[in-house]
């Protein structure tokens, strides 16, 4: 839950990148970190295993300037996607304000995407939150792989599997090349801010 500090005129907002392991959540944050390195004054925090897999979370604070006179500090987090890390995944979701669900567009990952979205729903329920109420954006990642002839899920399939009930914004993207990474982030920030802006007065 966002914290509004009337004394410092500051709002802290928590956005979590969720999705199956190896889908590209960490790569999204790495791209944002590089792209905006002039605006991000601190190091990106990552807690990972020797094999470079996210063990707990990645964390990137991102200042977007003023909204209604308040300094808005966006805190971007990723969760560890591997199934066995559910306990830590759930911890990262605590107090979440907005979610980017990073799906892996590779055809072989279809089942993993669906299971991960279901897992998100269960973990949110743990905090009495609903995937239908929290601001959420879908990202269909790795579309660059089409060029290499790797079979991808058609957008209709991804929408049918993941977005038929959510009916939210979705972006085909490539975290590796940066396609739609910033667009995804901007969308979730604006949706999340819209949900709290009335409380800034």
């Amino acid at each position: 839950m966002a914290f509004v500090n009337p004394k410092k005129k500051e709002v802290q907002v928590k956005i979590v990148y969720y999705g199956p392991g190896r889908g590209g959540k960490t790569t999204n944050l790495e791209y944002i970190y590089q792209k905006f390195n002039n605006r991000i004054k601190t190091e990106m925090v990552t807690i990972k295993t020797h094999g470079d897999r996210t063990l707990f979370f990645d964390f990137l604070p991102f200042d977007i300037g003023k909204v209604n006179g308040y300094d808005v500090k966006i805190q971007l987090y990723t969760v560890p996607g591997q199934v066995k890390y559910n306990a830590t995944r759930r911890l990262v979701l605590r107090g979440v304000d907005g979610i980017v669900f990073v799906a892996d567009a590779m055809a072989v990952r279809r089942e993993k995407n669906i299971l991960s979205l279901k897992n998100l729903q269960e973990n949110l329920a743990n905090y009495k939150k609903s995937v239908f109420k929290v601001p959420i954006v879908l990202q269909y990642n790795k579309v660059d792989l089409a060029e290499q002839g790797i079979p991808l899920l058609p957008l209709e399939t991804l929408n049918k599997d993941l977005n038929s009930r959510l009916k939210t914004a979705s972006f085909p993207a490539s975290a590796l090349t940066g396609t739609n990474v910033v667009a995804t982030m901007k969308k979730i920030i604006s949706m999340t801010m819209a949900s709290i802006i009335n409380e800034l007065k």
Partner: protein
Amino acid sequence: MSYTLGQEQLDGIEEILQRDLIDVGVRCVFLIDMAGNIIANRDNGKIKHDVYSLAALAAGNFGAVSAMAKIIGEGEFSLLFHKGKKENIHFNKIITEFLLITIFSNDISLGFLRLKVNETVEKIKQILESVQAS
């Protein structure tokens, strides 16, 4: 959804952190919530830590230890202490949603620190509870 504390409460909390902890030699103290938001922070002016990253890691760390407590059948560990060669970190839970984190060097004994932290926690608890009740 968001939540807030009034200017008066925040002033009160900062004053307590300053007087009861910083003025007695603690280097840096911050009050955070379990989502990793910083509610208030104070330091002795000599150090500049990346407080937002510290808050995110502290909330994660405390959350992980609390989950471990549940697994072994302990309700919770209400405080944690990490000892370094020169710097130490102490975590203390306040009500269910907040954490007080102090960073202090070896010039201060752990016993004294705990005493001061306990006093601080009691005072801050009253402020936070009055807000929750209202």
